């Protein structure tokens, strides 16, 4: 592949060489990612959502969630003043939707990071240390894989206190097994390469091999998996909030849907209360899925969508 980056000058240090290589592969990655139209759409959508969530303190402010002096009357239909109507406390639903994006995105991202971190740790160690340890670990993974994840998450959330930490933990510790399996497979593939044997011969310990040789090689896979996990985590957060297991003190999209149902928006046909949060959840989840699939198909063309 031709790139505009010059070939490494003679005498360049190993560190500089490594950076050059990294830059070149990033450029190559972007060039291939650009060819996936769905991936670009997803990325654009995510950028928009991120902007909305990050600028929310400036655009709507935190008082939008206050129930004490709500600006409107309860359950107003959409109007010029309230483009999406008001909720049962008379709060502006558009403002709540914008403010809720912060919690939904934050919980989704953190839960996905936790889940992928556990999965990576389990996967790499199970792939590196063979024998009984790996067998037991993979048994546990398989057990978690077939378990009804939501039931487990609900059980966890029921017995713990209602907080965002609980939700993140409940999603994170129940959704890691797919990542663990993928990472283990990749670890086994990497560890069969000769340079691992060389590293061992030079005296590299377990930690050195796992952290310096295996981890960088499974990182791209982990990245793609993390992107895909976020959409699942956002859906799981919405589900837990809808079942009344979220943090009741914060506004999230799932929480809005739960309130709408409790306020009787379904039987009175108040669609403006129900439709926007659901569309927001679906749009963010879809955007993350599209990005994740595009990343996956760039990094691993055999698994990818366009093969």
């Amino acid at each position, binding site marked *: 592949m031709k790139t505009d980056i010059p070939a490494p000058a003679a005498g360049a240090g190993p560190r500089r060489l490594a950076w050059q290589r990294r830059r070149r592969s990033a450029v190559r990655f972007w060039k291939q990612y650009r060819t996936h139209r769905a991936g670009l759409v997803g990325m654009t959508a995510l950028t928009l959502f991120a902007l909305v969530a990050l600028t929310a303190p400036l655009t709507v402010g935190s008082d939008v969630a206050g129930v004490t002096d709500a600006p409107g009357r309860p359950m107003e239909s959409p109007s010029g003043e309230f483009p999406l109507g008001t909720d049962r406390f008379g709060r502006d639903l558009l403002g709540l939707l914008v403010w809720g994006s912060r919690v939904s995105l934050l919980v989704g991202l953190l839960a996905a990071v936790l889940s992928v971190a556990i999965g990576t740790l389990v996967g790499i160690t199970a792939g590196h240390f063979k024998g009984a340890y790996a067998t037991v670990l993979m048994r546990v993974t398989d057990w978690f894989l077939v378990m009804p*994840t939501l039931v487990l998450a*609900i*059980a966890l959330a*029921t017995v713990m206190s209602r907080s965002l930490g609980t939700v993140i933990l409940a999603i994170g510790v129940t959704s890691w097994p797919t990542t663990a399996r993928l990472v283990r497979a990749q670890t086994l593939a990497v560890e069969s390469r000769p340079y691992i044997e060389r590293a061992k011969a030079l005296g590299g310990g377990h930690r050195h091999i796992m952290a310096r040789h295996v981890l960088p090689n499974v990182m791209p896979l982990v990245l793609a998996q993390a992107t895909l996990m976020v959409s699942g985590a956002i859906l799981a957060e919405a589900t837990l909030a809808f079942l009344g297991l979220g943090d009741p003190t914060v506004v999230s999209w799932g929480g809005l849907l739960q309130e709408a149902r409790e306020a009787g928006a379904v039987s009175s046909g108040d669609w403006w209360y129900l439709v926007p949060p659901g569309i927001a959840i679906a749009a963010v989840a879809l955007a993350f899925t599209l990005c994740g699939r595009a990343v996956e198909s760039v990094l691993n063309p055999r698994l990818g969508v366009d093969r």
Partner: protein
Amino acid sequence: MTADASPTPAGKTVGPAPAGPAAHGPWAYTTAVYLRYGVGKLGGAAVSLLAVLVTGFFLFRLIPGDPVKTMTGGRPVSTEQLVAYRKEFGLDLPLWQQFTDYCGEALTGDLGTSYQFRAPVIDKISEALPNTLLLTGTAFVLYTALGIFLGTRAAWRHGRLVDRLHTGLALTLYSVPSFWLGLLLIIVFSVGTGPIPGLFPTGGMESGGEEGFAYVLDVAHHLILPVVTLVAVEYGQTLLVTRSALLDEMGSDYLTTARAKGLRDDLVRRRHAVPNALLPTVTLVFVNLGRTVAGVILVETVFSWPGLGGLFYQALSVPDLPLVQGLFLFFAAAVIIMNTLADLVYPLLDPRVGR
């Protein structure tokens, strides 16, 4: 799936046929080999079930919070009553004794007494189970069939408009929260919006008072919206898996041979490609049963369907810990048993598995 399955991603434990010597062709599959495989799978399932039992116990015991206080819901209760409750639910015994009692009871089908209904948990479960089986069974058959059918179509026309349309729709519906879709369907088709009158009931399973054939029709009428919701959110996964499994097969030599024999495109697909692509699909359909359970809980909650999912929601909003625990054990055990059954059937479908 065994612990030391081949190093492939989840659900793809089925590798290409091992190139064994010709003497051990595909029919050299003996009963002894199958028995050993089956016993291994059953042993694994037993360990998994035991793990579920242990998890169920510790999850609901060791985490802080006094179950008796939760049960009385903050109402003023005298100390004597608290002691009586503790005794009734066996909470005054030492932990190890609670654990052995619990294991013994769970194995004999006694899952404790619901705080909320003041009835044995197992009775509540067996009351609700047929309703859930009706809903889930109907939806399961429909979404699997639809997913396989559309997935095959999409893969065969890979990259064309049909493919992109189906993949796009599947991905979109896959991202939609099932409970939200259910609520929307209720607003549009049950409450009625604009010109659309309320065509379907808003929830429940029967209107009451019907008998015989009219009753069956009434239940079917109540069944339509929940089934549509479940199928819509679940078929996408089957579609995507079928599609990628078939795409994996499509470059294979045997398909070229089949075409070279002069078979019609349609026959190549139905007789040669699809049967081979089906196995990974079936595997994943079963592994994803856990996800289906989630869908069932939400859909039953939204449509007030008197099944296990609706019961679970009622239990966790109290929270009625014995009922939550019992349902947790039941859901997990059901999924594990279904997966084991599937594992036992595969080698009969495909001799490459289990050798």
